[in-house]
């Protein structure tokens, strides 16, 4: 989704750095999030995604760098952006003995919303939990609890929603359901969404633009298609012959496959396990870091 022409960036981050002793958790991260886009930070565990996100949200103070959210400088007074952003933390459990609806009303009251009851209902609807409003949070399934956490991030109608690994630990079906919820928050309700994930497929499916993070730095930032385009290859062709396993990134799949087969016929070789896979973010990560991506 393109950035609206009439507005500045939703988020601007410059040279963001966080150290814990001698360990550098985030090292000079700069990025810009446009309004109304779904922006993903993709990377393996320990890459610095959550720390980056929490410095933008105002939860962790950076050692260096600037964060501006909708024109407001986040540091040193993160309270200035509280009503503009909604946050789902990576690990949030909620008050056990309140129902989903009661929790949402309470959080809406935290933001001094006079229409707390209406906000609670519409947030439940936005995440598809209408039928679970009377259930205690602790009695909801993992996927439902995540959706409730997202509803809590939406209850005060913020402009930007931060989701920290929203689908981690969910089964594939629950993950796809949550993708639909996130898409509708962005497309039907016009929210800017910033999420972190370590699932390549999730970043590719869900995000308008993706920043790939590895070892505290951003190594690439573009649309998923742009990142793959930059590989200068459309597909990965892999096969096995007497010389072992081969994998090549190629632009012209047809020519490559024909060449492999022609060469095999000419030399009397047998080619096995020939497969063609469209290049994806996994290949991007491999080419950028020289390492296989491990979720």
């Amino acid at each position: 989704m393109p950035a609206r022409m009439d507005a500045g960036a939703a988020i601007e981050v410059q040279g963001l750095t966080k150290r814990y002793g001698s360990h550098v958790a985030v090292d000079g991260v700069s990025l810009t999030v446009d309004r109304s886009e779904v922006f993903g930070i993709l990377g393996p565990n320990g890459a610095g995604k959550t720390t980056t996100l929490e410095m933008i949200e105002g939860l962790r103070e950076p050692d260096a760098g600037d964060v501006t959210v909708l024109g407001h400088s986040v540091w040193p007074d993160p309270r200035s952006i509280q009503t503009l952003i909604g946050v789902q933390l990576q690990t949030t459990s909620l008050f056990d003995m309140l129902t989903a609806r009661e929790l949402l009303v309470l959080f809406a009251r935290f933001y001094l919303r006079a229409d707390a009851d209406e906000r609670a209902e519409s947030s439940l609807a936005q995440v598809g939990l209408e039928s679970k409003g009377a259930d205690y949070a602790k009695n909801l399934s993992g996927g439902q609890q995540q959706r409730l956490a997202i509803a809590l991030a939406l209850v005060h109608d913020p402009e930007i929603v931060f989701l920290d690994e929203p689908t981690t630990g969910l089964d594939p079906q629950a993950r796809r359901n949550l993708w639909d919820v996130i898409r509708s928050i962005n497309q039907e309700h016009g929210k800017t969404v910033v999420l972190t994930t370590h699932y390549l497929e999730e970043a590719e499916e869900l995000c308008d633009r993706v920043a790939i993070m590895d070892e505290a730095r951003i190594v690439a930032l573009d649309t998923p298609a742009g990142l793959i385009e930059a590989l200068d290859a459309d597909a990965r062709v892999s096969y096995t012959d007497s010389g072992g396993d081969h994998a090549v990134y190629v632009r012209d799949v047809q020519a490559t496959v024909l060449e492999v087969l022609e060469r095999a016929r000419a030399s009397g070789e047998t080619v096995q396990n020939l497969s063609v896979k469209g290049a994806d973010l996994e290949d991007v990560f491999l080419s950028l870091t020289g390492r296989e991506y491990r979720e």
Partner: protein
Amino acid sequence: MRFNPGRFGATTMAQLRMTFRRRITLFWSLVFPMILMTLLGLLFGRSVTAGDIVVAQPVTAAAPKAMVTALEHTKGLTVKTSSDAAAAIKKVKDGDEDAALVFAPKGDGSFTVRLYTSNTSATQAGILKGIVFGAADRVSIAATGGPPALAFRAVSVDSASLSYIDFLLPGIVALSIMISAVIGLATVLVDWRQRGILRRLKLTPIPLAEFFAARITASLVVAVMQVVVLLAFGRIVFGIHISSTWWAGMPVAIAGCLCFLAMGFAIGSVVSNPETGDAVSNVITNPMMFLSGVFFPVAAMPAFVQAIAQVLPLYYLANGLRDTTVRGLSLTHVAGDIGVLLAATAVLAAVSLRTFRWEPKT
């Protein structure tokens, strides 16, 4: 960062909901004190029964007969008979009876009255001695035909003399307020921090002070309820006379609850996991329970225990509640207790604020 009354009210209601929905909380704050009170009342509460006394037969002379009749009319005393002195004394030795009474004729028409008691219950022996010697005196004086030269009346300096159960009830109320406040807040605070609830709250506009003010208000509501329900329980089940000044116990209860909430907050701030929180709470509250005159008067304890009691908040809470709810003393009389409790609150709150953490230890 401004206090908002509507938000504060909504947060307090949410906290009350959470408290009342947790059955274990209700058990510790109301049911457990009732059970404890009933057990202790059954074990120690019947101080109105002086005991059993067995009289060695035969009793034929006028003076001994008059004395046995006097004893039979003594409230709380059961008089039995046995065939002879040896049999009566054996019953006391065997622990079947509390005391044996033997009349030994001196030959001149008068008698020596011997009371055999066991040392296993010194207090009861003392009570029985008092009753028997009193009866002997009255019979002796009556035999002389003249009026007694000295008439004796015992007068208690308390406005109302307290039986054990009267003494116990305010102590139990104090104890239940302490348990609910300390353990309630310490465990909850640690749990909220460990599970990331405090971090999540930090992202919303409600100030921490307002959030915890709501929590404290909910706890005070529980404390007021404990006072009312447990006093009513004492009155209905044990027929305890509640003073007309009982309402003056409310400020004491509130000051005590604040003090123990501050203690719970301090523990919850220092400790890192819920199990340790429980353990530390117990290590602090259990000794206090026995050293503060909740179950037995501090005056009956060794001097060093009395000295320790003077620095324990529970001592002041129990005292203040006892003075107002069953002794009938006024609010001004317990102002000192309230002052001590509020001072302790201030110290503990200062410790909590210095040690408070939003984030779990990593």
